[in-house]
């Protein structure tokens, strides 16, 4: 155990041509906590996510990830797949990105690619059917089964992922991200398109990931009922800058937050205020 913080974002700036999407953003996410990034549409939340998960190279600033063993990793220097592989940051996507033509189980097996690659002796041992690889594969299937139970998709294991209902796909994507064994799980609007019952189940799932497995979570979310219920810490963005942060209660009462939401979208502002009452 070292350090409270798993992720610290320092002076992050991202420009696309002349447009500044994120400006000098700094915030931190605590270990074994759920941190939420909220803000009106176009505030730059997904851009921040893409910088953290390596899909964009930030124009400036630093993103530090600290592992349990105290190892510090500069995320802005790693690119695409290495962030998931070495820094152990897993993510989901706003518009679900599963492998629709592969089965639910296969989706979870692909998530364990790097472990299985090593076990298969980078394919060569696996090709001749080495026992090492077979036991590794059995373990991978066990882990996948375990996650399928958690997200209650066990009986759909052999169905094509593309055939699942929307809510099931969302949960499968989270399970797939968890199968990579992440230190930090980044969720991009996990509750989007879910009904009330599914949202509640999602909250429960995320809480259990935090409480039982101790995985830190960073999430972007519009569904205020979910955010207010499960977040330990909230960062509010508008127009690419941070306008507030704190506990759900603090954020809810912050006039700047209310103004930002009122200026942007009445409905969302109402949601922020209502969730407080």
């Amino acid at each position, binding site marked *: 155990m070292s350090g409270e913080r798993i992720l610290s974002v320092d002076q992050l700036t991202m420009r*696309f041509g002349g447009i500044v999407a994120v400006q000098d953003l700094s915030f931190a996410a605590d270990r074994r906590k759920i941190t939420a990034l909220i803000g009106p549409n176009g505030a730059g939340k*997904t851009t921040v996510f*893409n910088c953290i998960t390596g*899909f964009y190279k930030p124009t400036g600033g630093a993103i530090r990830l600290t592992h349990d063993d105290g190892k510090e990793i500069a995320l802005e220097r790693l690119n695409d797949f290495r962030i998931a592989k070495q820094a152990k940051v897993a993510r989901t*996507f706003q518009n679900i990105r599963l492998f629709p033509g592969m089965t639910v189980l296969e989706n979870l097996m692909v998530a364990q690619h790097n472990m299985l690659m090593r076990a298969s002796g980078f394919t060569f041992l696996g090709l001749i059917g080495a026992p090492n690889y077979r036991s590794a594969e059995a373990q991978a299937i066990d882990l996948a089964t375990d996650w399928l139970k958690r997200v209650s998709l066990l009986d759909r294991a052999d169905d094509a992922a593309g055939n699942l209902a929307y809510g099931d796909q969302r949960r499968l994507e989270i399970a797939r991200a968890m199968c990579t064994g992440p230190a930090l799980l980044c969720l991009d609007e996990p509750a989007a398109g879910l009904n009330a019952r599914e949202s509640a189940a999602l909250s429960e799932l995320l809480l259990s990931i935090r409480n039982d497995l101790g995985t830190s979570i960073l999430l972007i979310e519009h569904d205020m009922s979910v955010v207010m219920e499960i977040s330990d810490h909230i960062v509010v963005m508008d127009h690419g800058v941070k306008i507030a942060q704190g506990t759900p209660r603090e954020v809810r009462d912050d006039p700047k937050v209310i103004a930002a939401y009122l200026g942007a979208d009445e409905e969302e502002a109402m949601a922020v205020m209502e969730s407080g009452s």
Partner: protein
Amino acid sequence: MDYFAQQLINGLVLGSIYGLIAIGYTMVYGIVGMINFAHGDIFMIGGFIALISFLILVSFGLTAVPLILLVVLLVSMVITALYGWTIERIAYRPLRHSFRLAPMLSAIGMSFVLTNYSQVAQGARVKPIPPVITGGYTLHEGAEGFAVQLSNMQIIVVLATIVLLTLFTWLVSRTRLGRDMRACEQDQTMAALLGVDVDRTISMTFVIGAGLAAVAGMMYLLYYGQVDFNMGFVAGIKAFTAAVLGGIGSLPGAVLGGLAIGLIETFWSAYFSVEYKDVAAFSILIIVLIFMPTGLLGRPEVEKV
């Protein structure tokens, strides 16, 4: 220096022809997002139709060269445009909402069909014609007896390219059809909902592309004095290279790319080796795609996650 100037002229002329073909690629790619593999063969068909209509007119005893050329141009543009229209109807339209590989393979199949159709219909041998437009200007008389020549034919090719490019840029930016095309390029479903006849717009794109390819075919015939059934494939790939180099979807880009490819090919042949001129052109394609996938005038693309 004189030799260099001469090659520059030759390269620009060749590049103009590539540019005319490239416009067809770039328009079709922009609007339906497919590489129209058969486009090079459309160019070849255009050359053949120009050749045949030219022969017929001459044998009827017409002697006024400008009149002959005008008629040949119109006939080959109309018939070749109809080829473009028909091919889109038969081979591409049924596959418009199919998966991505299907139209590409269909286009490759269509390219084979056209190549072999003209081989079967007109024979495998090269078809030569005597020079139609002769004369020109000597720009500079070199000391060693080498003269920089600019022929009338070369002037016509370059002028035709400039005129057509201006015309079609105007068409795409100012007319109803052009607006429909750009709308379809952005979002076909939305365009259809807003009352754009998507099928017709796409058809027209193919028609215009084929018409321009016919002009290129005719210029090729007049400039090189021959056509053959096999000339479409390589010319097509080079024109596609030009379209990519210029930035796919951009009309001026296509011509700019065409000029670049024409110049590179000509200078390579002049200073290095003729045998490897196609290798040079293809290598350029690979290099451009690797280092400049959006081309000279293309818009950069931000990956959507």
